[in-house]
């Protein structure tokens, strides 16, 4: 592999409420690479995202997760966040009483261990919100409370751009968005690729979000396993033929 290895998932088995969802996933991601994870509904894509982030509901039965040369399989969520893993939620939760702005500032301070100057932060935040075409007033609104689906997704990408993680997992960030919103979100992701030089795992059903993005690898997940890995052209192929051939292959 050309790029220095960032994430290495070795033969991962994951249970959710005593039901095995992932049956031995192997995945290796280098620095600065963009990986697309596709597959039919209910096949374990989001489960992989949650397991990488460390959601305690998702139990790793066997296998290991290595990040930046460290075994993080047993690490709690917040430690992984500090290590540089970020998950953009499919359904971001509403948290009353905390403004979007203070939430991001707090997260930044947690990550860097330093106090962030309010003035610099506000300027940076406004600039980033402009990229995402977000109304600046959202910064002072309670986190995701009463946000539309599109604004919630934009707020996730805003956090991504502000926190600058080394690995971002985007869990169906494009779902439920109209064409314009997909374009805006996609521009935000492009910005992350460009300015943060971070790695990406893009979990998606559709290919719209990928049009403007540079993709290095594409993985197809079916029934809890990655059954095929290819380059960007695999996206095109799936776009035309769907997952049908893979599912029959499984049987």
């Amino acid at each position: 592999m050309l790029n220095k290895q960032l994430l290495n998932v070795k033969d991962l088995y994951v249970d959710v409420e005593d039901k095995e969802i992932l049956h031995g996933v192997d995945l290796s991601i280098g620095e600065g690479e963009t990986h697309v994870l596709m597959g039919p509904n209910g096949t374990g894509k989001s489960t992989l995202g949650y397991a990488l982030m460390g959601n305690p509901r998702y139990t790793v039965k066997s296998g290991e997760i290595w990040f930046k040369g460290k075994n993080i399989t047993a690490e709690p969520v917040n430690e992984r966040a500090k290590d540089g893993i970020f998950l953009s939620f499919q359904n971001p939760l509403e948290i009353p009483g905390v403004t979007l702005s203070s939430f991001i500032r707090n997260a930044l301070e947690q990550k860097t261990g330093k106090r962030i100057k309010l003035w610099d932060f506000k300027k940076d935040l406004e600039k980033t919100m402009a990229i995402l075409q977000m109304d600046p007033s959202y910064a002072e609104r309670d986190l995701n409370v009463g946000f539309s689906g599109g604004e919630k997704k934009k707020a996730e990408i805003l956090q991504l751009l502000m926190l600058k993680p080394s690995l971002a997992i985007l869990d169906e960030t494009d779902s439920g968005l109209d064409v314009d919103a997909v374009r805006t979100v996609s521009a935000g992701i492009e910005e992350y690729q460009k300015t943060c030089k971070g790695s990406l795992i893009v979990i998606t059903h559709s290919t719209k979000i990928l049009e403007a993005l540079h993709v290095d690898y594409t993985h197809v997940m079916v029934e809890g396993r990655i059954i095929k890995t290819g380059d960007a052209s695999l996206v095109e192929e799936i776009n035309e033929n769907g997952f049908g051939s893979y599912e029959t292959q499984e049987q």
Partner: protein
Amino acid sequence: MKEKSQVEDIDRSIYDFKDDEKDAYRIKAGLTPEIVQKLSKEKHDPAWMELFRLHSLQIYNEMAVPDWGPSIEGLNMDQIVTYVRPNTKMKAKWSDVPADIKNTFERLGIPEAERKSLAGVGAQYDSELVYHNVREEVAAQGVVYTDMESALTGEYADMVKKHFMKLVKPTDHKFAALHGAVWSGGSFVYVPKGVSVEIPLQSYFRLNAPGAGQFEHTLIIVDEGADLHFIEGCSAPKYNVANLHAGCVELFVGKNARLRYSTIENWSKNMYNLNTKRALVEEGGTIEWVSGSFGSHVSYLYPMSILKGRDSKMEFTGITFAGKGQNLDTGAKVVHIGENTSSYINTKSISKDGGISTFRSSVVVNKGAENAKSSVSCQSLMLDSESRSDTIPAMDIRTKNADVGHEAQIGSISDEAVFYLMSRGMSEEDARACIVSGFADNVSKELPLEYALEMNNLIHLEMKGSIG
């Protein structure tokens, strides 16, 4: 910043009786007319007040202890004299103040001198100056703001006599009767017609006065078209060796007047808080209650609003946080008498570590209260499976044209929300505290900024160490 300085020990002299032998006898016998008479004399009561106290005492001795709420068995009623009159033996020492209270002072960043005062021991910090300045400022608008004792003999003595315990009568319940017999300290406020008091008046300063804070009486009269915000209490835990608080608050809201009454209390966790608060609202008037209950071992607290005049309104926003060993029975009552009256009750309760939080509400709509509107909403958050949360709403509607609604919700902290916050680097403890503060947010928003911050600090303190 407020100037603070150290002054001498709390003056317990008003309660000091010299006759030791007789004392021992009296303690056994409970509260006697002699004790009450002596208290009355020491306080230089007017004659009617002495009679009032004695009459209240009689009622007190005849009434039974309430048995419909949380148990108050831990309160030794035979020792009631020691609550009324802490003797020298019971005088607290700083070294006797429980460690958790000292820690809380530490964490809240309360200055040393103030800590001792709040703990009811040693030095008392000089709040008199601040209090005096505030009084001067509002006096220019014709507002009377004074302690209850001075009010009894001052310029407004007749007004005080006319209103004192007329809204909360000694016959209401045993602890109201006890209050009538032994009350001491508290505030009197009179806002004349049309006067809008810009700054909130805070009884915080008064509560540090000797002997106050246990049976204190608050009487507020807001005249026609006037406007006042009064803040009672303090978020730092008040520690008292005598663990009974039976205060009384009477609020008279005149025609088209508005009164906002905010309370934050964080009594020490050995306290029995049996407090009675009531407001009478005339035509077009508004009473707004904001109430935060964090402390005490047992609380009975249901501020009541009597919407007497047509178009009068009440709004109640409350939060109760019951932790380990706490049984907090709180809520609100409203009586609709006038036409077009409206009440809006919105409460949140949090229980944790086996704490019990009960929300009790009573909505009465009288026959003549045409077009009355009432909405009651109660949300509870239980932080673990040992804790308990109950909702006991009562309604008595006697008119056909009333719009009355009740809504209750009980829930727990969502694991997904904790995960979401943690995925951005927050510790589990902070994530939970953050969700709990968010839950309490509608109450914080009603409080002046410094109180909102203190309440937030309190929540974070209460949440500390809650992760096993």
